[in-house]
């Protein structure tokens, strides 16, 4: 008996966990017309006992005598049959006679799904985990191209620090500007996709994308306008930065469309095609690196957008029957629903980038935001270590979604406390897994770096490997991201139970602490101390979200009910 749909695996965007909030029941559970029952044929010499056995066989123990009468009639037994076949005044009298003769029977209980064999479970985990890591493959492909070919879609190994600074700022700004819309899309569109309302899914997708584009344009106009008005950046750098910003914003938004449509391989393929184009242009033409990057980004955007348009249109065109008539609620209602998920996405991405901006802004530099390669490498390697833990969150989302209802089906209504304890223990186990994977991932990332350095295979980042700042940032960054992973894991539970504001209430203080500590430390100390800010913020996020998750899951009975 299940009254709601589950949304357990809708990716909200790269690096973000899904938000499988429950939806209200979509259909009348009693809507299906009953078919003819196969009762002993009326007029046959069937006995009342045979009818009683038939009733229990067809429907289990009947609700009352009226149910018996209705079932008899639906099986073709008429008043005339009751008189002629069973010696009763009418069907109702026959139903009463049947009720007296009902055999003892237990109500039917839906058999729980058998636990799949170990191999099948491992394969499933591997598949989900693979999907979790898949989120990071396009970035890995970019990194690989950067190190091997010397250029990626939006960076080049021989960038000057000025170029790197401009591109880094544009990248960070595009992340922050689009993140809320990406997360909102990841929440809204699957509602319509999973109910077969693909026309609405397409409509929502284009609306959110359109709003995202407008918002990103506004953010860009303000940011670049301010920079121009204050003469903080030379005009050329501003123009270059604006071009990167626009293209990266477009890539982020269309990439989110493909994530929403679960076209992961196509994302990878589009990235690959764009990198091939970039590589060929880099090796065989005299175009500037920026121009090659723009072409590469443009190719990626066009390919992904083309695929998204085709898939969305094909699905919308294939929408069946009355589903074509589906219409969206008022726009302001949609905004209200998606808002918390958008806010969470915005705060989350701001959290990921704030310390870098603070580090880039500290000290006296040629540009207001000055790229710090050792800081970036230290943090990025730390992030690479945490990827294994973040990918595991895919399994957490799926497992939580898969365990909640079956567990609620195992416990009687008088055992809510036991149920809540089981769910809380599940949460604790998942946190332990995330923590362990964060530690293992960090060890693995460290080991890989050490081995590569030993083999002399670090290539162009060898110098940075020797930089003590990179080591300090890596060490503190690892800790920070481990706490961050725990915070995200807690948020996964909160989002799954449709409690986004609790997740926001956890991450926002963390972000504020991160910014405050980062600014205070970098004002009086070296720029790399910004990483201490993100560590402090992550600890606060992990602690607050842990409290919120505990408070929520100790009443998992209520939150499971109210997740719609």
């Amino acid at each position, binding site marked *: 008996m299940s*009254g709601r749909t589950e949304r357990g695996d809708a990716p909200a965007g790269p690096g973000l966990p899904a938000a499988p909030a429950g939806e209200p029941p979509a259909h009348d559970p009693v809507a299906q*017309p009953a*078919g003819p029952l196969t009762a002993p044929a009326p007029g046959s010499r069937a006995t009342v006992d045979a009818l009683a056995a038939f009733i229990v066989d067809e429907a289990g123990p009947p609700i009352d005598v009226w149910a018996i009468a209705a079932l008899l009639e639906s099986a*073709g037994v008429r008043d005339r049959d009751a008189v002629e076949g069973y010696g009763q005044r009418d069907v109702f009298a026959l139903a009463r006679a049947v009720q007296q003769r009902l055999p003892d029977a*237990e109500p039917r209980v839906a058999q729980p799904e058998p636990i799949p064999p170990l191999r099948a479970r491992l394969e499933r985990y591997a598949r989900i985990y693979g999907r979790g890591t898949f989120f990071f493959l396009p970035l890995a492909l970019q990194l690989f191209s950067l190190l091997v070919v010397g250029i990626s879609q939006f960076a080049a190994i021989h960038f000057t620090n000025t170029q790197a600074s401009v591109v880094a700022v544009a990248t960070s700004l595009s992340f922050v500007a689009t993140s809320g819309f990406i997360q909102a899309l990841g929440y809204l569109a699957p509602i319509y996709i999973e109910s077969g309302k693909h026309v609405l899914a397409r409509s929502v997708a284009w609306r959110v994308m359109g709003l995202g584009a407008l918002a990103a344009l506004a953010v860009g106009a303000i940011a670049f306008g301010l920079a121009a008005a204050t003469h903080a950046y030379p005009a050329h750098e501003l123009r270059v930065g604006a071009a990167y910003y626009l293209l990266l914003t477009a890539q982020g938004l269309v990439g989110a469309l493909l994530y929403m449509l679960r076209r992961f391989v196509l994302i990878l393929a589009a990235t690959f095609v764009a990198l091939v184009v970039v590589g060929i242009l880099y090796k065989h033409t005299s175009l500037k690196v920026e121009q090659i990057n723009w072409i590469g980004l443009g190719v990626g955007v066009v390919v992904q957008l083309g695929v998204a348009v085709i898939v969305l249109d094909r699905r919308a065109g294939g929408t069946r029957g009355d589903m074509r008539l*589906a219409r969206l609620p008022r726009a302001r209602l949609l905004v209200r629903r998606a808002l918390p998920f958008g806010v969470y996405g915005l705060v989350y991405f701001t959290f990921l980038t704030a310390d870098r901006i603070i580090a880039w802004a500290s000290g006296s530099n040629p540009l207001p935001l000055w790229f710090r390669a050792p800081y970036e490498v230290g943090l990025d390697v730390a992030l690479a270590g945490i990827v294994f833990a973040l990918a595991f969150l895919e399994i957490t989302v799926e497992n939580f979604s898969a365990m909640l209802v079956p567990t609620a089906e195992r416990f009687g*209504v008088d055992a809510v406390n036991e149920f809540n304890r089981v769910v809380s223990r599940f949460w604790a186990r998942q946190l332990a897994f995330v923590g362990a994977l964060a530690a293992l991932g960090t060890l693995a990332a460290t080991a890989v770096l050490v081995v590569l350095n030993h083999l002399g295979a670090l290539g162009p980042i060898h110098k940075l490997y020797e930089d003590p700042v990179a080591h300090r940032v890596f060490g503190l960054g690892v800790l920070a991201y481990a706490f961050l992973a725990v915070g995200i894991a807690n948020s996964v539970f909160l989002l799954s139970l449709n409690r986004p504001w609790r997740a926001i209430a956890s991450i926002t203080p963390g972000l504020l602490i991160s910014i405050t500590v980062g600014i205070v430390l970098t004002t009086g100390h070296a720029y790399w101390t910004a990483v201490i800010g993100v560590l402090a913020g992550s600890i606060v996020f992990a602690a607050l979200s842990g409290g919120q998750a505990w408070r929520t899951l100790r009443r998992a009975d209520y939150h499971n009910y109210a997740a719609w």
Partner: protein
Amino acid sequence: MADTTVLLCTEGTYPYAGGGVSTWCDILCRELADYDFTLYAVTGEPEVRLRYELPPNVRATIHIPLWGAREPADFVLADIPLSELHARRRRTTATAVTLRFVPLLHRLLAAMALEASPEDDGTLIWQLWRWFQEHDWRATWKSREVWDAFVEVTTASHGALREPTIEDTATALRWLANYLLPLTAPVPKTDIVHTTIAGFPGLAGIVAKLEHGTPFLVTEHGVWIRERYISVSTGPFSDYGKRFLMGLSRYLARVNYRCADLICPVTGFNRRWEVPYGAPAALTETIPNGVDPALFAPAPKPRSTAGRPVAVAAARVFPLKDIETMIRAAAVARRELPEVQFLVYGSLDADPGYVGRCRALIAELDLQETFVFAGHHSKPAELYNEGDISVLSSISEGFPYTVLESMACARPVVATDVGGVREALQDFGILVPPRDHEALGLAVVGLLRNPGLRTLMGRQAREAVLARFRIGHSVGAYRGVYERLLALPAAPAALAA
């Protein structure tokens, strides 16, 4: 604009679906052109399209999808300003829910647990409606106070043979929220409320009676509570789920009957259920359906079917019509009459799985040349004239139009003896037991082989329609009922002090 207004309440029928009830509604609205109608249409999902061109005296349609919407503001309250929605949410505090809504919920659950008729005269429904006119539906049902109260009641007295699980309980409360969603809709003040079923649409009638003092009329084509018993009993629910669903259905049916000023089933067969279930016998009057004998008039068979014995059927292909029995009957008939043809006109969209089973059976019995699904007929009034007789194999019926229409066309009917079919057919057709394909097939053969009997029965059938089952009879009876209701002394509005 007419002086008299009627709120006509439907569920899953007019104006968004075809079928007998919708036909009846359309006839009623068109024929009573001096009344203005507002439709209060409860449907399953929001995605529906108009299946009828509404007559000009249908002034408005209030569409209430029970399922598929996240909250009433999506569809039911789509015209309510967002500021009002916000105000409702603001008013739905934990304290308000605890002090005002939870006691109503307790009373509702207690009433649902009763096997006998509830004491409630509709006041509880009206109070719930008043709550949802001022408070937010979603915030109310999702509140912890409501969940805790529901769990407490369920733990103490669930009434099931097996203790409900936590998921059973959660699902049941979500069901309750959706089924009572009509209580969020405003109920317009009209002169009469007329519901076509004693179920969820009747909530509007109960509310109107208590809020505005509006007379409340119930017409049942099928008996809602009986159909709920069948669907729920055979549905994929736990024992608790069945009892919960039927508890709610039982309560609603009985409050509908209790509040109605008059109950007009379309067949005496329905009274067999309604009166023992709580409908006051003195307030129950049968008004049979009627057809237009000028529209449904006898005509010779067209060239396409001339020269071949043909049995036609007008039926949506879904399980209650028991088309499988008709197919088996066709095999029996072909055994005796090899050139016989069964032509079934009607929608194939209602239950594609069932249609697939039927097609497989046709193939299995090698009946492709004998049994034909002909889809929609462009001129429904003419389809009966394509055959020599018509066939009805349903296992459940109210007072089927298809029988009356065929009779009006002087095509005798071979039908299963269910519901009000016997009342309609009288002696001018052949009745067979339901689910008995041998009897159905042999009756078809008997009539097809006997043109004299066919002609005689056809003529008598048409005369019976002219005498008793014309639209004028049916509509005239409703006009009389409306006038009687309008003459009732005004019921005390808002019984609540």
